[in-house]
C-alpha cells in the first residue's frame, strides 16, 4: 500500500517537473530581447550571430527547442551556460551543496527554537507565558526572511560584530575539501577550526531563513499539542504521576507532531526559496546567488537548470514528508 502511494507520487512529481520546465522555457524563449547579441562583441557580423543562434538552437521552432532541451536533460546534458561558458550541470552541482547546507542548518535552528517554544507554550497554556509566545510568533510570522536578514546584518555586522555577514568562508583559509559540502566535511575530517569559521559565516543567513519557519513550527505544534493534551491517555499519564513536561514529551509530542509535518514541510520549501535573496544579501556563494546573476545576465540554459533543480528539491521534499507521514503513523503502516 505504501509502494502504491509512492509510485503515484512519483508520477505526479514528474508531471509537475515537466510543467515547471515548460513554463520556464516558454517565459524565457518568448521574452523580448536578444541574448545572443549581448554575448558578442560590437563588431560581430550577422553571420556570427546566426552561427551562435544555431549553436544554441534558437533557429528552430519553439516546440523543437523544448524537446531538444528535454532530451538533453534526460541524458544528463543541461546545456552550456552562456555567461559562464561552462557545463550547466556541473555549475549547478558545484553550488548546490552550499545552499543545501545552509537550508538544513536553518531547518535545525528553526526546530531548535520552535520546538521548545511550542512545548513551553503548551505547558503554560492560559498564562502570560503563552500569550507572550503568541505575540512573538505573530511578529516573527509577519516579517519575511529578507527583513530579518537585514536586521541581523545591522545587529551582528555593525553593532555587535560576533558573526560574519559576508561570504561562505574566510577567503584566506586553505581548504582541504574534496566535495562542496564544506560543513559536513569539516566535521568528518575533525577540522573544527574550519567548522567554526564556516558556522560563523552561515549563522546569520541561516537564522534569517529560520525565524519565520520557527514561528510557524512554534504556532502549529503548540496548537496541536494543546489538542492532544485534552485526550484521555494524557489524563491517564498525569494520574500515573508524570510531570506536565514529561507528559507532553512522552505522550503528546509524537501524536501532535505528525499532523503538523505536512505544513512544516511546505514551509521548508518556502525557506529554500528564500535562499535566493538571503544568499545575495550575505554574499553567500550558493545556488540562489548564482541564480540572480544568471537572470540578470539572461543566461537561459543556466536559468533553466537552476529553476529545475529548485523545483526538483521542492517536489522531493513534499514526497519525503508524505512518505514520512505514512511511515510514522502506525495505523497507516499496518494498513
Amino acid at each position, binding site marked *: 500500500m505504501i509502494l502504491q502511494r509512492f509510485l503515484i507520487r512519483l508520477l*505526479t512529481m514528474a*508531471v*509537475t*517537473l515537466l*510543467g*515547471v520546465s515548460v*513554463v*520556464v522555457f516558454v*517565459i*524565457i524563449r518568448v*521574452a*523580448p*530581447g536578444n541574448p545572443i547579441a549581448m554575448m558578442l562583441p560590437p563588431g560581430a557580423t550577422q553571420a556570427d550571430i546566426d552561427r551562435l543562434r544555431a549553436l544554441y538552437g534558437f533557429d528552430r521552432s519553439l516546440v523543437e527547442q523544448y524537446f531538444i532541451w528535454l532530451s538533453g536533460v534526460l541524458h544528463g546534458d543541461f546545456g552550456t551556460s552562456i555567461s559562464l561558458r561552462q557545463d550547466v550541470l556541473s555549475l549547478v552541482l558545484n553550488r548546490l551543496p552550499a545552499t543545501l547546507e545552509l537550508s538544513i542548518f536553518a531547518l535545525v535552528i528553526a526546530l531548535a527554537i520552535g520546538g521548545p517554544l511550542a512545548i513551553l507554550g503548551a505547558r503554560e497554556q492560559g498564562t502570560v507565558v503563552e500569550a507572550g509566545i503568541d505575540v512573538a510568533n*505573530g*511578529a516573527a*510570522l*509577519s*516579517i*519575511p526572511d*529578507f*527583513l530579518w536578514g*537585514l*536586521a541581523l*546584518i*545591522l545587529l551582528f*555586522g*555593525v553593532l555587535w560584530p560576533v558573526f560574519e555577514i559576508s561570504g561562505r568562508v574566510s577567503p584566506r583559509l586553505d581548504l582541504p575539501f574534496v566535495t562542496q559540502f564544506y560543513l559536513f566535511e569539516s566535521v568528518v575530517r575533525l577540522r573544527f577550526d574550519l567548522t567554526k569559521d564556516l558556522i560563523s559565516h552561515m549563522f546569520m543567513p541561516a537564522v534569517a531563513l529560520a525565524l519565520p519557519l520557527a514561528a510557524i513550527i512554534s504556532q502549529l505544534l503548540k496548537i496541536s499539542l494543546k489538542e492532544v493534551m485534552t485526550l484521555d491517555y494524557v489524563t491517564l499519564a498525569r494520574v500515573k504521576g508524570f510531570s506536565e513536561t514529561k507528559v507532553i514529551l512522552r505522550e503528546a509530542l509524537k501524536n501532535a507532531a505528525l499532523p503538523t509535518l505536512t505544513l512544516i514541510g511546505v514551509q521548508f*520549501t*518556502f525557506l*529554500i*526559496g*528564500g*535562499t*535566493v*535573496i538571503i544568499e*545575495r*544579501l550575505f554574499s553567500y556563494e550558493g545556488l*540562489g546567488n548564482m*541564480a*540572480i546573476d544568471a*537572470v*540578470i545576465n*539572461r543566461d537561459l540554459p543556466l*536559468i533553466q537548470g*537552476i*529553476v529545475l533543480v*529548485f*523545483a526538483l528539491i*521542492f*517536489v522531493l521534499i513534499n514526497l519525503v514528508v508524505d512518505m514520512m507521514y505514512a511511515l510514522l503513523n502506525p495505523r497507516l503502516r499496518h494498513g
Partner: protein
Amino acid sequence: MADARAIGQRGDARLWLAGGWLLVALLAAIFAPLIAPQDPLAQDLMFERLPPFWMQGSQPGYWLGTDSLGRDLLSRLIYGGRVAFIVAFAAALAACLVGSTLGLIAGYFGGWPDRIISRIVDVWMAFPPVLFAILLVAVFGTGLSSVIIAIAVIDWTRFCRVVRAEAMGQARMDYVENARIAGYGRLRIMVSEVLPNVVPTIVALLSLEMGIAIIVEAILSFVNLSISTDDPTWGGIIAEGRLSIHQAWWVLVFPLITLFLTVLSFSQFGEGLKARFDPVLR
C-alpha cells in the same frame, strides 16, 4: 462570553495600531510633495552622509540624515512610499482577482476544473517565488507595471488555495443544497451564496498580500530590477544602505524600520479585520 469580548478588544487594538500606521504612511506618500522637506532626487555632495538630527554633524532640514550622494533620507523614504503603496494595492488586487476567481471555480465546481486548476497551482508552487519574480521582471523588462504584473503572476496561488478550500467547505453546506433545490443556477449560487461567506478570509488575505507585495518590490529594487526611473524605492535605499553600512548606518536602519512597521501593520490589520468579521466570534 468574557473570552470573546477579550479577543475583540485585543483585535481592536491591533486594528487601530496597524491601521493607524498604514494611514500615516499612505497619507505621507500621497502628500509627499507637501510634506517632504527636500527634493528626493537632489544630490548635494557637500552634504553627503550626514547623520540624523540628534547626532553630531547633522544639518537642519535633513532630519534622518543623507546618503552617500547627499540626498535627504526622509524625503526619499516618503517618496519611496508612493511606489510601495501603488505596487501593494495594484498587485494585491490583481492577485486577489485572479486567484479568488480560479479558487472559487475550483472549489465550488470541483471535478475537472478543480483538477486542472490544482495541477497548475502545484506547478506554480514548485517555483521559488523570489526567483520567479526576478525572472519575470528581468525577462519582460523593468518598470512599475512589470513589477505589478510579476507579483500578481507569482502570488495568485495564495488566494486560489485558500478560496478553493473555503468554497469547497461552503459548497457542502445545507444552504447551498437548498439553493440548488430552489432552482438557482450554479453560477448564481456561487456568486450570491458562497462568495459572501468567503469574503472575510479574502479580505484578511488581501491585507497580507499587500505586505508581501511591498517586500517583493523591495527585494526587486534591492537587486536593481524594479522601476526603471530614478524615483526612490525603499528597496533601493536599502541597497545603498547595505553598501555604506559602516559609514552611514542610518541609510539602512530607517528604511528597514519603515518596512518592518508597514509589513507588520498590513498583516496585523488583515488579522484584525478577519477577527472582526468572523461571524462565529460575532
